[in-house]
């Protein structure tokens, strides 16, 4: 299939993918750095490139609420947010997943207040990791575009029916022009396809009226939560099927996580998002020097593929997990605690250390990652290294 090679920012690329998905409804509220994505989408609507009904709401809380109402009719629905906007819609983010509504939402990752900061870290999405959404993180504009196409097939699949967050780094990805391949509109539509309105319950079916969101007490609530858990257990198979089909179509192959030069690696870094790209450069340099270091880049953070992580990391001597968010008072960042838990009980499990980095958009340079690899080497040699460390902070 012939693809188009274009230059777009992450926000423009995601807006393009969502235009190609022909959503019925899109509630929207501005917040930096997500706004540009909705500007671009509004341009598509204004120019008749897509027939989506936008609802220009008065807050993110109402954006997610309107999305819930819309999706409960069966309409293909998306919204987008960042940081404090995500925090404001928190309550309804849980409701969207609990009602099993296949809403798609870019979360253009930005630090949470306070103090107010518009730059990138992952504290917004990581704070919402228990909300019941599928969470996929992107390293660059190409991945953001591809994920924004694939998310519909995952969310709306009858075995899943869960909302999907497409996470990409504020400014670093959202506002940086990169060259990428995009599908022609018709091919994208062929891949995504129309929303199947027959496979669910619609709030507009007045001949078969349903009650959505009832009071659910001690006698049923738990079972309903289990059904959400089971949907997450079924999701990886569907995600991999969609990734595979997309790979065959475009030549871009994805997995639950990406392994970069990990074959014989003694040290493996685990990094989410754009910093993984920086780390790949460092790893290439280190490999030239004979340092056996590789990278594992999580793509799908929820559901969390623990068994696969254990397999991928189990043969390393040491694992260095980088968290661009902090769980205050916790023993390490959210990615660290998940990975460490996945490795627990393995025979000859690797050592594992955590670095909290980049909070509030603090730049993470190659020199810092080189230094971190040095610390991992010391750990292998038996030098005492803390479980949880900081990277790039003035002390």
């Amino acid at each position, binding site marked *: 299939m012939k693809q188009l090679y274009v230059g777009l920012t992450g926000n423009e690329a995601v807006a393009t993918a969502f235009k190609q998905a022909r959503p019925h409804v899109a509630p929207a509220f501005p917040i930096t750095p997500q706004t540009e994505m909705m500007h671009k989408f509004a341009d598509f609507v204004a120019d008749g490139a897509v027939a989506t009904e936008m609802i220009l709401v008065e807050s993110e809380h109402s954006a997610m609420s309107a999305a819930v109402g819309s999706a409960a009719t069966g309409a293909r629905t998306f919204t987008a947010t960042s940081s404090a906007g995500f925090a404001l819609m928190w309550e309804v983010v849980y409701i969207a997943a609990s009602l099993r509504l296949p809403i798609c939402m870019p979360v253009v990752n930005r630090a949470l207040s306070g103090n107010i900061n518009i730059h990138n870290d992952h504290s917004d999405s990581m704070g919402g990791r228990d909300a019941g959404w599928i969470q996929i993180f992107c390293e660059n504009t190409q991945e953001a575009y591809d994920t924004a196409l694939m998310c519909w097939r995952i969310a709306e699949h009858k075995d899943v029916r869960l909302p999907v967050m497409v996470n990409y780094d504020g400014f670093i990805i959202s506002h940086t022009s990169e060259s990428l391949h995009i599908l022609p509109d018709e091919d994208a539509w062929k891949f995504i396809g129309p929303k199947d*309105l027959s496979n669910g319950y619609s709030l507009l079916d007045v001949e078969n*009226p349903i009650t959505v*969101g009832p*009071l659910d007490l001690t006698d049923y609530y738990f079972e309903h939560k289990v059904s959400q858990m089971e949907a997450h257990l079924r999701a990886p198979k569907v995600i991999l099927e969609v990734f595979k089909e997309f790979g065959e179509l475009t030549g871009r192959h994805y997995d639950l996580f990406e392994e970069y030069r990990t074959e014989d690696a003694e040290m493996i870094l685990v990094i989410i998002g754009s910093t993984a790209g920086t780390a790949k450069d460092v790893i290439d340099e280190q490999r030239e020097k004979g340092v056996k270091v590789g990278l594992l880049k999580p793509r799908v953070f929820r559901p969390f593929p623990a068994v696969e992580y254990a397999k991928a990391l189990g043969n390393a001597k040491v694992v260095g997990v980088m968290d661009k968010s902090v769980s205050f008072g916790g023993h390490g960042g959210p990615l660290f605690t998940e990975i460490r838990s996945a490795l627990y009980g393995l025979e000859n499990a690797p050592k594992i250390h955590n670095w909290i980095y980049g909070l509030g958009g603090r730049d993470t340079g190659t020199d810092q990652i080189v230094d971190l690899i040095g610390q991992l080497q010391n750990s292998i040699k038996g030098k005492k290294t803390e479980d949880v460390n900081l990277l790039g902070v003035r002390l």
Partner: protein
Amino acid sequence: MAMNLQTLSKNEDLLAGGHRACAGCTGSNILRQIMLTAGPDTVVGGATGCMEVVTTIFPYTAWKTPFIHSAFENCAATISGVETAYRALKASGELPVPREKMNFIAFGGDGGTYDIGLQSLSGAMERGHNMLYVCYDNEAYMNTGIQRSGATPFGAHTSTSPAGTVKQGKEQHRKDLTKIMVAHNIPYVAQTTPFHWRDLQMKVQKALEVDGPAFLNILMPCTVGWGFDPAIGMELCKQAVEANFWPLFEVVDGEYKLTYKPKEDRPLMEPWLKQQVRFKHLFKPGNEGMLVEIQRWVDSEFNKIMKLCGEA
């Protein structure tokens, strides 16, 4: 279509019996009356609150029309999403059952409307969705245990504004939500009560017929929160209107019109207050001034409405 009892009695009852509202609740009566007029091609949204809780305890539902509850403060936004999706799916020819016109009704109590849901309501009204928002105003957060709200009248005892030895109930007058809604320049706003069933039906019908958003504020005496004999809820609606505490009027495209003309020698507030435990402390020695203030406020607010209606 003119509404009369005969027509209404033939319409399907879309709120099933067996819901779990209190004996003497006037709220379920309001819902039933609205649904008799709205008919089956209606999607209903409920804010968290008494009426949502008592009609939808899983695995049961009292609703014979589609119904959605999401949260406390977002009913207007939720229904705005449903209404928008209806237009989108109608345009694309994908409605599950084709309907040229459907009704979208959001309802919430005064807590969910005057207070926590005000932003969501304001946004939905300003955006011009073709929906009706109904506030069933029982003048406090009854579902959570009778806490004061922005709709609670001055002097009322509630769980969070209790009458004690130093304080004597709520210290502020209620806000005028109906006027706030008029200020949104929407095509239809009205106040009514379930006792005045003909008035209520007429207003629901007009609200659903206008092109754009409509708002109804409906007084809902609460036997538990107000503290009265469950048999007299409707009587308290009647008296609230006759005493000018809850005037019946409508505002069509900004034009106020009284729909019930009170008598010249309207009853004072005292007899109405006396029937409710929440005002019991006002009749203790030393609180005479509060009674005077309530009467002054009611007269003053009513006169403003009369002027707006061109009756003064």
